């Protein structure tokens, strides 16, 4: 009896301390964003929240980030997912190399990837066009470990060889077999992988800032230099948005599957 009481006390203390650590800064953001600024305000004000829509670069930056996330998503669906399935089905020899390739970004910090890609990015921006496509290309590599892990976990759970044989015996084309039969059976894995990808893209600052591409995070930093309250309000709003987005994802064990790495 005495032991359970002690354990309860420990539990409460630990949970309280950690909760305070994690929630206090979030509360402080709210507090900061409602602080009076300027002479017109007395007491608390929601003005910082109300001026969010009229921030000059913000709308464009949100659109840019969403378009980039959309392209990344497209790359996942059209290129990464079919390739992983294809290799699983037809190219068993490439399985291990593909896995290593997909896990490589874990060993390459984003800041290092920027150093390597900067000359290419500059060349493309000068000679071709400055579009979100190049950035989306880099991002799609950055998220590879996460996407690959959730895909291969999903693929391991179904017997795709039997599915593929059945589909081809019934006369389905290869395209139909992958897009119409195998992809729908692993859709949870695809959705999980895509959600992680989108959350990463919307929160990414390192690469876009150094390549001078004004995504949402870069613009939030920019707003922060002139009006702190507004920038804090925008940050809190986008945090809540991502929280809602992630609450929509069915599985909660995503991260663990993803990080169960075997490099050797």
């Amino acid at each position, binding site marked *: 009896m005495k*032991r359970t009481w002690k354990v309860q006390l*420990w539990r409460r203390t*630990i*949970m309280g301390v950690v909760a305070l*650590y*994690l929630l206090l*800064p*979030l509360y*402080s953001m709210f*507090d900061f964003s409602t602080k009076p600024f300027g002479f017109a305000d007395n007491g608390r004000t929601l003005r910082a929240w109300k001026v969010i829509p009229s921030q000059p670069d913000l709308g464009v930056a949100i659109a840019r980030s969403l378009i980039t996330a959309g392209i990344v998503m497209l790359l996942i669906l059209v*290129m*990464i997912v*079919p*390739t992983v399935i*294809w*290799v699983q089905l*037809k*190219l068993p020899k490439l399985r291990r190399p593909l896995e290593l*390739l997909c896990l*490589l970004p*874990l*060993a*390459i*910090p984003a*800041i*290092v990837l*920027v*150093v*390597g*890609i900067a*000359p*290419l990015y500059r060349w493309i921006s000068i000679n071709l066009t400055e579009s979100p496509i190049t950035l989306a*290309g880099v991002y799609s590599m950055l998220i*590879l470990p996460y996407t690959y892990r959730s895909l291969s976990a999903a693929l391991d759970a179904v017997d795709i060889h039997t599915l593929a044989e059945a589909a*081809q*015996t019934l*006369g*389905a*084309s290869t395209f139909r077999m992958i897009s119409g039969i195998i992809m729908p059976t692993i859709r949870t894995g695809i959705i999980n992988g895509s959600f992680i990808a989108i*959350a990463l893209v919307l*929160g990414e*600052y*390192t690469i876009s800032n*150094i390549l001078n591409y004004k995504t949402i*995070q870069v613009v939030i930093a920019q707003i922060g230099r002139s009006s*702190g309250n507004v920038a804090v309000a925008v940050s809190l709003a*986008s*945090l809540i948005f*991502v*929280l809602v987005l*992630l609450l929509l994802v069915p599985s*909660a*064990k*995503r*991260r*663990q599957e993803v990080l*169960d*790495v*075997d490099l*050797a």
Partner: protein
Amino acid sequence: MSHISEPGAGSAIGRAGSRYWRGKTSYLGALPFILFSGLFLLYPTYNVISGAFKNQQNKFSLSVINETLHSPITMGAFRNSLSISLRTAIAGSILGGLFAWALVTGKKKGFLYKISVALSSVLAQFGGVMLTFAFLATFGFNGVVSSLALHVAPNSFLASSTWLYGLNGLTVVYTFFQIPLMILVFLPTIENLRPQWREASDSLGGNSREYWTKIGFPVLTPSFAGAALLLFVNSFSAYATAATLINLSSFLTPLQIASALSSEVGGANPAEAKALSLLMVVVVTVVMILYSLLRRRVSKWEANR
């Protein structure tokens, strides 16, 4: 056109031939991805690694690496990077690990459990500008804690915000995203601790301390160490938070890389950026290999269970 649906079509030689070509043409399916990752992943990696071994005249040379490794500024930044990663890995893994334990001993899959997991998966990714703002609003000038401290204990370090911009401040800020990551990574492991083991230990006359020192900790140690390594890498690679909080480019290796890369300050030095990048890649690779070895041990134990 499907080959599988035509069993026995063609002569033996023809079949062998088509099978040969089928094997080769299958590789075409993987080609777009290989080319793409070659362009956006392998080429940059190669670029960094090979660039670190070249001098200004584009010839093979160890001079840049040599200079980088012997520069006191670089080594200072590198030491700070290692120190901050070590400190936040330890703080994050202990606090997050304890929180995971507290969650598991509570009501299984209750509301508190669900909300903690959901919030952790958001906060583990919460870095960069927004995290900097959150901590400025807490401990910065006119922040919640600093204005409180100004009233209660005006002489304490909390009353001024200067500590936030140093090693201690950055440790506190980074630990914010390390704790939730630890919770996410460690929760499945701690859930695997069987209540039967506790019962067995109790019925054999073991007390709580004996259970933890002889069963609990030994079973959890490899996973815990693995998670701590992951946290180390997470902190070591982080750039955005430090970049928005600290103005001194020689403070951490990632900051130094960014300033060597961009010419805003004046002397852009891509060669130095590459040598520093190589240094980071080496550290991260070594830690990830250790991590992978530990994971292997964990999965062996889980398989033998």
